[in-house]
Structures are given as structure tokens and as C-alpha cells.
């Protein structure tokens, strides 16, 4: 441990006096220490602002940057890979006193975080309609995983609609209503773009079963039990078209 590094970290944390013995002090010293203090905080706040654009839209840039400053002071981060910074911001936001009147804020932050995770998730070969067609009846016994980018959410309130209206305004599902109505959402990446859409209870049940590596036949049963009117082949075809299932061909996966 170096005494200089220890003193410098103390100064970054607010204890300017700790660093003074290591400096030739003049009338610019305090401002110069401030440059270092601000640079680190600004980098963290900028990273949060880039990662949580929906939250920024909902509360405005000034409110957001004040909240981000409070978070950054409590959570310095441990990784130079800044895309990982703020993974715990949604949980923290739920406890942030000024956000208590905004019950949709922390859930929207969770969805922003999931968008980033989907954006940088691993690449993987997906099941094509041709592959599914060739497998035919054998599909029912097969356990196919989901693409690493897939994130599934279910809320008791209309968080997904609210989030979609801000993050994907061109695909907004309709007039914005904040109400206690259950909704489910899928966020995933296809052809290099992160997509998001509302999914119905049958789709959610089907995807959740696949995520747990249940055979497709079981996933289909669980989906059908929730909604007798849902055509399972139609549901399956639309999810294949969305590139959400991993291929079952081992050579393509390698």
C-alpha cells in the first residue's frame, strides 16, 4: 500500500486535507483536486444516464443527474467496463426517498437495465423455421434453450406499456394508462437490434418453461392450460420468427 495512493483516495472521497502533505499547495490546489473528484463522478453519472434513458425521460435530466450523483457517491463501482456500472441502480432507486411517489420508476429502470444486458449478451445460433419444420413431431420431446439475450418480465401494473411508450414510441401499444393490470414483456436481440414487445400469458408460460429447459411438449401444455383459445403452433411460429430459441443442432452451436 502506498501512502500517496491512500491519501489521494481520501481526497477523492472528500478529505482534501489528507492529500495536502503530498502537494506543493497554491491557490489552485483545491480547484485541481475538484477536477479529479468531478471527473470520476461525471463519468459514473454519464454512464448511468446512457444506461437508463427511460428513467431520464420520466423524471427529466436534472432530477436524474441528482439521483445518479447520490447513487455514484454510494456505489463507486469496481469494473473499468462501464457498461456493467449501475447494475444495482434499479434496486437502489426503489429505496431512494425522492422516488417514493413514482412507483413505476424502479421497474422502468429494471427494464432499461435488461435492454443493456440484451444488447451485450453473447451471440448464439438460433432455431430457424426450416430446422423446426425438419424436426416435426420430434420437437415435443426436445428441450431448447432461449437466446442469451432473452429477458422475460411480468408485472401486476402496466409497467411494460409505460416503458414501451418511452423506449419504443413508434411501436407503442396504445394510449398510455397506468393501472393495476397484469402485463408481461419480452426483451431480446435479433439481427443486431434489441427488440421488446408485450407477450400474452400463454407466450410467457411457454417461454418461461423453455427457459427452465422443459421439453417443448411440456411448454406447450403449460401455455395451452392458461389460454384454451391460443393456437400453440401459431405461438411457436411467431417466437421462432423472433429468433428466441437456440438451435438444437450441436455443430451450429459450437
Amino acid at each position, binding site marked *: 500500500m502506498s501512502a500517496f495512493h491512500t491519501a489521494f483516495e481520501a481526497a477523492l472521497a472528500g478529505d482534501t486535507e489528507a492529500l495536502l502533505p503530498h502537494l506543493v499547495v497554491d491557490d489552485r490546489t483545491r480547484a*485541481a483536486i475538484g*477536477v*479529479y473528484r468531478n471527473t470520476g463522478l461525471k463519468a459514473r453519472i454519464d454512464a448511468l444516464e446512457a444506461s437508463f434513458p427511460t428513467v431520464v425521460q420520466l423524471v427529466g435530466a436534472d432530477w436524474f443527474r441528482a439521483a445518479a450523483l447520490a447513487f455514484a457517491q454510494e456505489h*463507486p463501482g469496481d469494473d473499468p*467496463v462501464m457498461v456493467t456500472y449501475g447494475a444495482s441502480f434499479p434496486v437502489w432507486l426503489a429505496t431512494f426517498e425522492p422516488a417514493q411517489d413514482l412507483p413505476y420508476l424502479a421497474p422502468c429502470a429494471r427494464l432499461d437495465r435488461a435492454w443493456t444486458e440484451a444488447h*451485450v449478451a453473447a451471440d448464439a445460433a438460433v432455431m430457424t423455421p426450416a430446422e423446426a419444420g425438419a424436426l416435426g413431431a420430434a420437437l415435443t420431446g426436445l428441450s431448447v434453450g432461449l437466446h442469451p439475450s432473452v429477458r422475460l418480465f411480468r408485472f401486476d401494473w402496466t409497467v411494460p406499456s409505460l416503458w414501451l411508450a418511452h423506449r419504443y414510441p413508434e411501436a407503442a401499444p396504445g394510449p398510455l394508462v397506468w393501472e393495476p393490470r397484469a402485463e408481461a414483456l419480452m426483451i431480446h*436481440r435479433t439481427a443486431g437490434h434489441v427488440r421488446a414487445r408485450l407477450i400474452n400469458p400463454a407466450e410467457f408460460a411457454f417461454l418461461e418453461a423453455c427457459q427452465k429447459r422443459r421439453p417443448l411438449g411440456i411448454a406447450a401444455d403449460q401455455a395451452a392450460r392458461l389460454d384454451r383459445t391460443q393456437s400453440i403452433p401459431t405461438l411457436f411460429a411467431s417466437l421462432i420468427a423472433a429468433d428466441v430459441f437456440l438451435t438444437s443442432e450441436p455443430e451450429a452451436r459450437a
Partner: protein
Amino acid sequence: MTVPTAGLGLKPQHYAEASACPAAGSTHGLWFEVHPENYMVEGGPRLRWLETIRATRPLSLHGVGLSLAGDERPDTEHLARFRSLIDRYEPFVVSEHLAWSRRGGVYHPDLLPIPRNAEMLSRVSAHIDEAQEALGRRLLIENPTAYLALADHQWDEVDFLIEIARRTGCGLLVDVNNVYVSAANMGLSAEVWIDRVPGALVGEIHLAGHRSDAALGEALLIDSHDAPVAEPVWALHRRLIDRIGPRPTLIERDGDVPGFSDLLAEQARAAAVLTDLEMAA
């Protein structure tokens, strides 16, 4: 592959224009530089874009997270993921900073200074040795920006950098804007610095914009990267190139990022300095 002349820091908002930019005239030797930390992800479009651009242009990886001047050894996990990017993208140059940013499990997203003394010299040299070994590449080390007058400097900055290079075999990345800002803040001569740095060690040059401190004005310059390269910095660049010959020169811009064509205009100006000299030679 093209011989790199003047390059640009690659910004995500410019991926499409960067990959479509034709190689002609001043863009003939255009190359791009990225922070590897922005590409240490498992997959997705960022990596694809970098692959697309790397297919037609030379690429440089400029690390900000190795904390070579820290009082802890470089993080082996970080070195490993840096190495895998080097293996995948085969950069023509790999660089890092004479600075620290990581300590006790905390990452400071900044480039923090050290006093240039014997203790720091041996520590930094050991860390550079370790990093070069793990990365399988010679590193270029960038001169820092100084805001504070540290009490325990026992070495002049150029001499310190020369000694590090002698001990480790590393080269130097001369950030001319850092030279200008540091000299202004410390009351030293930027020209003397530029005239003393050994050409044989210089593998790359950085140019960037700075601004003056909101409260102190010109008495404290900030290496902000949020403005075009300033005229005195262009003059120092010309002075260095006139003496040591052309070196790959990068325009860095990280804040208030303008359109790609504005950055290309600065790139063309740097390219003109480099190629004029080639024609004169």
C-alpha cells in the same frame, strides 16, 4: 493493409459512416482507435461493428483500465479479456496510460497521477512488464495530464518516461494536448517537452481539445476532449513531426461529439501535416 496516418477515436454513433468511409486522399491512411473496455462484452452489435470496420481499416486499442501506476498489480482478469480482444482484432498498436484507476476493489473512472520517484518508477515498470507479458504485445505508454503540483517529483516527466521505456522496452504515446495542458498548469515549457522526447520511442500521437476551468479560467486548463484541437496544440504537433517524422496521429473527441464529417476535417488537417512531410522528404 493501409499505412496508418491520421486516425479518429471511433464513436458508436459513427459506426455506419466509419465503415462506409472510402480510402482516398486524406482518408487513405485513416485508422480508428477504441477503448478496449467498451468492447469487453460477451456479444452483440458492438463487436460486429468493430469487426466490420477492422476488416478495412487499421485499428488501435487504447486501454484506460489497467491502472499501471497503481499500488496493486494489474488485474489478471482484465489482462485476459484485453488479450482476447488483441487476439480477435489484431490492432496495429496497443497503448495504456501512466496513471492509476483501480484500488481495493474500487474502479475510479479517471486517470489519476503519481509522484515521479524511485518507488513509483520500479512499481510502474514492474506492472508494464507484467502487462506486456500477459498481452503478448509491446505497449505504448501515454504521458498524463497534470492538474496538481505533487511534492515528491524526483524526476522530470520526459526523463521518467525514457527510463520506464529503457527498463521495460515499452514505447511512448505522446498526447500533445496533455503536454500543452500540463505545461500550462505547471508553469513549464511545452516546447521543451516536445523537443526532448526521443523520436525513436514515439509510436503514436494524440491530439484533443481542452477548455479552461469554470472558476479559475486560463490558470487551470482541463483535458476535456469536448472541443476541436486548439491552435497551439496543432503548432506543437507540427513541431514534433518536423523533428521526428510522421507518426500515426489520432484526433480524440469524447464530449459534445460533432458529426463524422467535422471529425474528418480535423483528421484531414492532421493527415496533411504527416504527408506534407513525407512529400518533402
